[in-house]
């Protein structure tokens, strides 16, 4: 009898919890489905342009001209070869690599040094200077185009490393030179800001310990801060690389010959005033984004770490 009562009572107490559990489970499933459904929807949405780009790059000219989503004939892999040859991609590709590497070397050096100084060295006017530096992010590129152009042409003050040279030796104008495409971009406010945020999080105890060992700021920066800051530095490099790789307006203004024209100019070969050769344009676009995709693929983990640790939000 007791057993029966106990069993009834157990059943009585058990059943509601089962209902709750079921209820909770259904809600959870619905929630998860909605969540994943939404995520999948947006993932497809963001992948669609890539799909369209790749698909168009494999179409015939007439299929691309009417904006089809998928090719109606055999895949035109030869579009890549045609785009490469006609856009002179070999030349422009190499130029872009050199421009990006030279620029990034400068960006890393200036960002690390300035970021460290703003984060860890107390000096008069530090916050004011940093605020002013940040404010320059708000100035649109179009506003600074004319002054930048005048500076590069040596009209504001003579430039020491330019004119008539292939690399860095010559007269006072950097027009049509590698220096015009790299040096002005070696100071990145964003890079300085990012690294400053990171360096500010390094505990003072580490600095104290380094001081006891006789280290100065430079040694502390190189031996202690930089190894820790690897993710943040990689983030700066990646973002700087994308910026340098994608630049178009400035190179077109500041170059006249093909000597240092970057990859984006090659894409311009497929656009005319009354139409475009979309299939070649997309094949060229695929070639153009490939290095960025590869670099991001290898640096993805470090990049995510860098974004997370420096307090950046999307």
């Amino acid at each position, binding site marked *: 009898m007791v057993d029966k009562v106990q069993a009834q009572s157990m059943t009585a107490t058990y059943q509601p919890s089962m209902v709750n559990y079921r209820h909770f489970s259904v809600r959870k499933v619905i929630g998860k489905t909605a969540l994943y459904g939404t995520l999948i929807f947006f993932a497809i949405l963001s992948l669609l342009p890539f799909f369209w780009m790749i698909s168009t790059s494999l179409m*015939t000219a007439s299929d691309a001209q009417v*904006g089809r989503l998928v090719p109606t004939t*055999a895949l035109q892999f030869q579009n890549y070869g045609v785009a490469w040859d*006609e856009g002179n991609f070999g030349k422009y590709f190499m130029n872009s690599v050199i421009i990006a590497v030279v620029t990034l070397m400068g960006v890393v050096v200036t960002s690390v040094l300035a970021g460290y100084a703003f984060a860890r060295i107390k000096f008069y006017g530090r916050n004011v200077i940093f605020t002013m530096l940040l404010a320059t992010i708000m100035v649109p590129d179009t506003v600074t185009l*004319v002054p930048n*152009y005048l500076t590069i042409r040596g009209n504001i003050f003579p430039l020491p490393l330019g004119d008539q040279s292939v690399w860095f030796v010559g007269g006072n104008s950097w027009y049509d030179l590698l220096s015009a495409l790299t040096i002005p971009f070696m100071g990145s406010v964003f890079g300085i800001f990012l690294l400053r945020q990171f360096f500010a999080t390094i505990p003072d105890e580490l600095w104290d310990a380094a001081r006891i060992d006789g280290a100065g700021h430079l040694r502390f920066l190189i031996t202690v801060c930089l190894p820790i800051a690897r993710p943040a530095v990689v983030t700066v490099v990646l973002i700087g690389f994308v910026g340098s790789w994608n630049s178009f307006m400035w190179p077109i203004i500041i170059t006249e010959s093909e000597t240092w024209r970057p990859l984006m100019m090659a894409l311009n070969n*497929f656009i005319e005033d*009354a139409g475009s050769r979309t299939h070649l344009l997309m094949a060229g676009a695929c070639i153009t984004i490939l290095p960025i995709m590869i670099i991001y693929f290898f640096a993805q983990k470090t990049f995510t770490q860098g974004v997370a640790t420096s307090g950046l939000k999307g």
Partner: protein
Amino acid sequence: MFKKVMLFLIIILALGILPTFAQDDPYADVDPSGQTVTFWHNHTGGRARVLDTIVRVFNNPTATWGAENTEFFIAPETSDPVDLNALAVALAPVAAEYNTYGITVEASNQGSYGEIFEKIRLAIGANEALPNLTVAYQNQAATYQFDSAGEALIDMNLLVNSPTWGMAEEEIAQFFAGIWQSDVFPTFGGERYGFPVQRSMEVLYFNVDWLAELFANGHISFEGAPTTPDQFREAACAAAANPFSGAEVDAPESSMGYEIALSASNFAAWTFAFGGDIFDYENNAYTLNTAASVEAMTFIQGLVADGCARIQTDPGAFTAQRNFGLGTTMFAMQSSSGIPFFQLAASRDLGDGTLEPRFNWSAGEIPHTTETPVMNLYGASVSIPVSTPEQEVATWIFVKFLGSQEVMAIWGDAANYFPTRADAAELLDATFERIPAYAATFPLLQYASKEPGVPGYDPVRNEIQNTMVLLWDFPAGETPEEVAPLLDALNENANIILSEFSN
């Protein structure tokens, strides 16, 4: 005493006359031998390759061109519109007539028209050397002169009329009068800042088969392309209601009569077709609110309100070309230089590069209320920036070469731009046969009108475009904005901009 007076008078006269002779031809004693000419242009792809060939042959007119000579053989590319080696062989004798001075031209793409405009304005602002030759629309050339206080470009009249280097009257007479005059600037004392080596025209692209279908089914009352606004409305509305049997089934947009491009050239073309003009050249003022403009814009607004027309969804992606090619848009109005792209859109590629037309299409006049068509003819000329007299003459020799009958015909054939001289048509028979739309629009050159070549027209074009959005971009069923007040405001703004570029 008398002798002394006479001698004195003779000396005075000589002093007075001599400079006049010298002024007649300031280039008389210039030797252009061995000069290098830099040429900035906007052409890409096949057009750039043709231009490059023209330049290469000009630089080496006595070379043995053609496939046999490896040194001068031009390796073919997929996008070459013609056999460039054959073209080089045909050009060489012409080039030999012009370039007897060892002139070398270095042509390079410097971006689009807009980017070149930007670059040259920056260079003028920085007081830097300009290229020896550049493509420039008339309003851009005028802006260069405004920016530089009249010192950026040379007055090409001095070279056109030069007894030593100029052009014969008979040759000048071959140029279409309206086009020839379009590079002469009354606002700058009648000076010539450009030379017309090509032109395009705002033309109406239409689906021939669809029109025939509408007529056969009794949906429209006329055969062929519409020539009046009433016929245009009839066909556009009929097309919107009766889809084309040959339209692609998976087309992204519904059938539409007319796909509107938001551009100032479109605004001007419709105003011209309704018998008006957008600029008063006598009083040097914009006239964007005349009765013709109001009537034209009201006409288009009515088409939009009735569901017979829509603004093209993405002009940057040339959606009007796309929808036209898919058979869902009956009419599109665009530059004649777009003919190759419309041809591509309206064809099916069989996979081996062979194009098979999906339907018959053509291009023609803008439907008009005037007795004869009035076409909006535009296009960049080439302008010669100030350099040394030797370089200016060398550049001029190259310009004359570009303006020769043979080169114009070759350029017209390969690039599908219109030549600016009538006798080029004699050499274009094969082109007319190959591209019917080009043949159909070529005779319209005689009805040319033009947009104002005044400084500051570029920002005015933006203002016009913004107004077109206000006029035509409204939800279905809603009352659109009134046309006249909007055009009044537009005209006022345009004239304020003009005054800013006049001081």
